[in-house]
């Protein structure tokens, strides 16, 4: 089973001034999309940078394709495509330049595929990156990350700054990418609606801690949000809910299984939960 996981992060720790990544564990099986969610500053980018061995002095074990991320750096990176927030080629270069550079960097660089993406995205070949809009730049970054046929895509906020149509295009590319069962995606975002449908796993990081990592099915189909009155809430056993939030007119209670809850209590309003509600309840809710 070991090699069925494309990415395994074990007990990753990293300390900064005023921020700490504490024992981050992530397991991403082959062929799956994992949505990595959390507030800005929760530790998404730091985790991603550790996986790519960009930051220093972190502890823990990180395995990509079953290989150690530091020892087998080169082998791993030949097969990873990364879109990093705010990090890219110097902006005086052009998409054409990127092609002539990448040809020499990746063994499997596919110029034809790269230019196909440029055409699909309506990106110019010969204009400096700095002249591109934010959305176009993101698309260029994605085209660049995907044109060497990687097996793992690591994307930090790839849809930030994209309009809905571009976001749709991009998500289509991601889904197309995992048509090959060997390929997986780790995708961080604070725009949870992007992930709600396409992510197979959701990992939720808050304040440097992974507070939830489950399949989309468990979270979005089994989890539920119970809305009830104060009297009703007081009847609920503490073990039967995860978090709750009190507002002026109602209690919002996060439960692990809608079905189980329905069997036990006669409270009718149990809704499906959205990732956004889940995030809010997990962060702001009480127990």
């Amino acid at each position, binding site marked *: 089973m070991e090699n069925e996981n494309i990415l395994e992060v074990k007990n990753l720790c990293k300390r900064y001034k005023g921020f700490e990544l504490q024992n981050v564990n992530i397991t991403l099986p082959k062929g799956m999309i994992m949505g990595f969610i959390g507030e800005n500053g929760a530790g998404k980018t730091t985790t991603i*940078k550790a996986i790519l061995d960009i930051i220093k002095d972190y502890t823990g074990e990180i395995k990509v394709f079953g290989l150690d991320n530091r020892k087998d750096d080169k082998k791993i990176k030949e097969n990873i495509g990364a879109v*990093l927030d705010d990090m890219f080629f110097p902006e005086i*270069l052009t998409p054409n330049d990127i092609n002539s550079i990448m040809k020499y960097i990746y063994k499997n660089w596919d110029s034809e595929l790269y230019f196909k993406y440029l055409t699909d995205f309506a990106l110019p070949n010969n204009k400096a990156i700095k002249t591109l809009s934010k959305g176009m730049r993101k698309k260029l970054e994605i085209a660049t990350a995907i044109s060497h046929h990687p097996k793992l895509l690591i994307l930090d906020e790839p849809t930030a700054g994209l309009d809905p149509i571009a976001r749709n295009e991009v998500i289509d590319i991601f889904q197309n990418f995992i048509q090959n069962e060997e390929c997986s995606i780790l995708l961080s975002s604070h725009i949870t609606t992007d992930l709600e449908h396409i992510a197979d796993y959701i990992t939720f990081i808050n304040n440097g801690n992974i507070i939830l990592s489950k399949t989309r099915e468990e979270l979005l189909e089994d989890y539920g949000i119970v809305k009830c009155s104060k009297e009703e809430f007081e009847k609920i056993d503490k073990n039967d809910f995860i978090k709750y939030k009190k507002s002026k007119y109602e209690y919002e209670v996060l439960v692990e299984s809608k079905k189980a809850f329905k069997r036990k209590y006669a409270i009718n309003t149990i809704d499906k939960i959205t990732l956004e509600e889940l995030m809010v309840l997990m962060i702001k809710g009480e127990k």
Partner: protein
Amino acid sequence: MLGFIKKDLLMIKSNIKILAILLLIYVVMAFQGQMDLSFLLPFMSVMIMMSTFSYDSYNKWDAYAISLPDGRKSSVKAKYLATIILIIATTIIITILSFTISYAKTNIIDFENITGTIFGSLFATILLQSLIYPAMYKFGPEKARIGLMTIIFCVAIIGGFITQYVDLSSIINILNFIEEYWIIVFFMTMILMLYISYKISERIYFKKEI
């Protein structure tokens, strides 16, 4: 590795015009015999190369580069090599031009003087690169630039002194026991400088939190 060098060379293509203009000024000045500006060209190529550090840091290229195969290992090496390629290219151009102009003007080639100037400028340029690059990596392009101004000033004076007032042939005479090999010594010194500088830069880069 090649890709990283290519990236640095592609980055200076928008600055090639500056080098072309300098080249033109040099040719005009050389024909008028007013001032020998041949040192300017290799010198400027290092300066232009240095501007790439600012672009790199602005777009956080160093972090992105590490996400690419061999990125951490290649980044610094590529920067040094790309710079050296540019210096050698400009030096070759200037050498050919100097000889041509000298011949066109006087019908004789002042071999000693021209090579002296060119070797002097090459040495000063390499020295500049060797000094400033570790600072670039250590303090970032912004702070290093302030240091650079000071160093340029010093190097320019020293360089000027060497090429103008010191008769290089006398140094060669002093070293007459290796007279036949002075070029080798000269190059070895430059290579050593570059190598030490490169190793320092690499160390800084590897240790740096990007």
